[in-house]
């Protein structure tokens, strides 16, 4: 499991970077990207996420939650595979920058269905050995969502999460 933390260090293939930047640009343009420290957005450093004060409660709570020594934001929130990861970043980057620059997003922030699927896949990618028995059987929409019981895994208790920091 430890190696999965390490291998998330971004290897910036130029192709992918372009895609990602384009995704972000689609929403706002270069100004935000630079000034909003948009570039650091593409690193695995959790502090990069916390560049947005809007992410502060998640950042603070992550530091106090059980996974802060073993998983960073991207381990849970971005797809594990290389290309999919940057695609998601581009798409999310669009929403993120749009939201941050123009406001108008709804608070408390809450995870969207597609990102929720990514999250679930990431839980499984680290824990499949432990939970293999749970995945027995098909039909009825796959495994029970891990967050149904382990909502605190990433960010501790929910109270206050996502509210203004």
């Amino acid at each position: 499991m430890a190696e999965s933390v390490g291998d998330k260090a971004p290897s910036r293939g130029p192709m992918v970077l372009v895609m990602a930047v384009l995704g972000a640009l689609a929403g706002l343009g270069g100004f935000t990207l630079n000034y909003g420290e948009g570039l650091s957005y593409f690193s695995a450093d959790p502090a990069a996420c916390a560049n947005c004060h809007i992410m502060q409660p998640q950042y603070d709570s992550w530091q106090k939650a059980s996974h802060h020594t073993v998983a960073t934001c991207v381990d849970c929130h971005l797809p594990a595979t290389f290309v999919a990861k940057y695609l998601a970043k581009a798409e999310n980057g669009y929403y993120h920058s749009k939201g941050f620059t123009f406001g108008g997003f709804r608070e408390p922030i809450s995870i969207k269905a597609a990102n929720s699927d990514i999250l679930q896949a990431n839980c499984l990618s680290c824990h499949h050995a432990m939970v293999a028995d749970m995945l027995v059987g098909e039909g009825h929409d796959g495994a029970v969502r891990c967050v149904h019981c382990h909502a605190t895994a990433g960010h501790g208790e929910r109270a206050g999460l996502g509210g203004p920091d």
Partner: protein
Amino acid sequence: NIAERKDEARSAYVELVPVTEDDTDPAIWGRNWPRQYDSYQRTALSTRTRFGGHGGSEALPAEKIERDPWLKRMFLGYAFSIDYRDRRGHAYMLVDQEQTERQTKPQSGSCLHCHGSVMPLYRELGGGDAMKGFEQTFSWSYKDLNQKLHDMGNGHPVSCVDCHSPENMSLRVTRPGFINGIRALASGQAAVPHLPSIQQWRAGDRSRPYDPNQDATRTEMRSYVCGQCHVEYYCANKMPLTFPWAKGLTADDTEAFWNETQFEPGQRFYDYKHAESGAEILKAQHPEFELWSQGIHARSGVACADCHMPYIRDGASKVSDHWVRSPLLNINRACQTCHRVSETEMLARVEGIQERNHGLLQRAGAALMDQLDAMAAATAAGATEAELADARELQRKAQWRLDFIAAENSMGFHAPQEAARVLAEAADYARQGQVSAMRATTR
């Protein structure tokens, strides 16, 4: 990617022996899934909490009707006044049914639906069609049908095959009573915010009936498998076993369903006539699924299995604890993944809820006893049938509500406010009945 995962998953156990629809013996399945089987077997152990599990000896659970004598009096005229005990673990379900002195009054074959691994028997009777077989069993005597069950080698309590598909171990429901009941619920109008798949089915073209095994979400299945048995029912020899859900799942909805049920035209349904008062009484049995449905947990997607079969870590993997029992014996797994407070605090919260409910239960029981006294006094004073009609109606309503919560096994926990509401109505109707009987006395 997801496909890969599923492969990994499947390879997690080695199927040492093939299992089939006819394997009701859990020991065979246990060869493949020894950890689940181990915990399943522990349901033979005796457990106890303030209100859960059972008092009494290892050999025999305590008599509820002795602990609360008002229960016995309210059942006068029905077999439950003879013998009605605390429940215990799944391992005992068949022997407890065979041995209850309620069997001194002849019982119907329907009883086996929830106490034995009965599916092969249903198929046999129905020439391969379990639903058809099931539909005959209400006219069998319990004794004969149970004999046949044992003869076929299926004399087991609820078994793996009752909840799992032998093909791939996925959850499924098998019981005709449930399949009919949930179908009626889906086809009806009642709000079911806790069952999204029913809402989805309703929004569709309804070209085929709602089918839990096809339509339900995984989360729903984790409660449906229990809803096969932990429900209110009709179980005697005038029609097949019936779950009264067509109008909804609340105490009021199910009462309305029974009120409209008729065996003979114009003859409203009742389970028995009360031996003292002559009122036509409805008996409520263990409506856990129904009460849970009214609570905040159901509404939040929390399933029976989440609390009663929590995951336990066993070496490098985790498995569902098949030692189905009170979650209060297992708070850290059953509650604390969701509720991050101490075990003592969690227990105190449940105790607070249960004590309030218990107080109301006793209060409503006392009110009913006062009503019965008043009706007896009225009869002694020569009140006529017609003069007592109103009081009898009120007794039926009061008892239905009182029994609904008394027979439910969580002492109010599954839906605290709703249980209190139902008990408040029970006490109010019983007191109204007392007043009515007093009027009949002085008229």
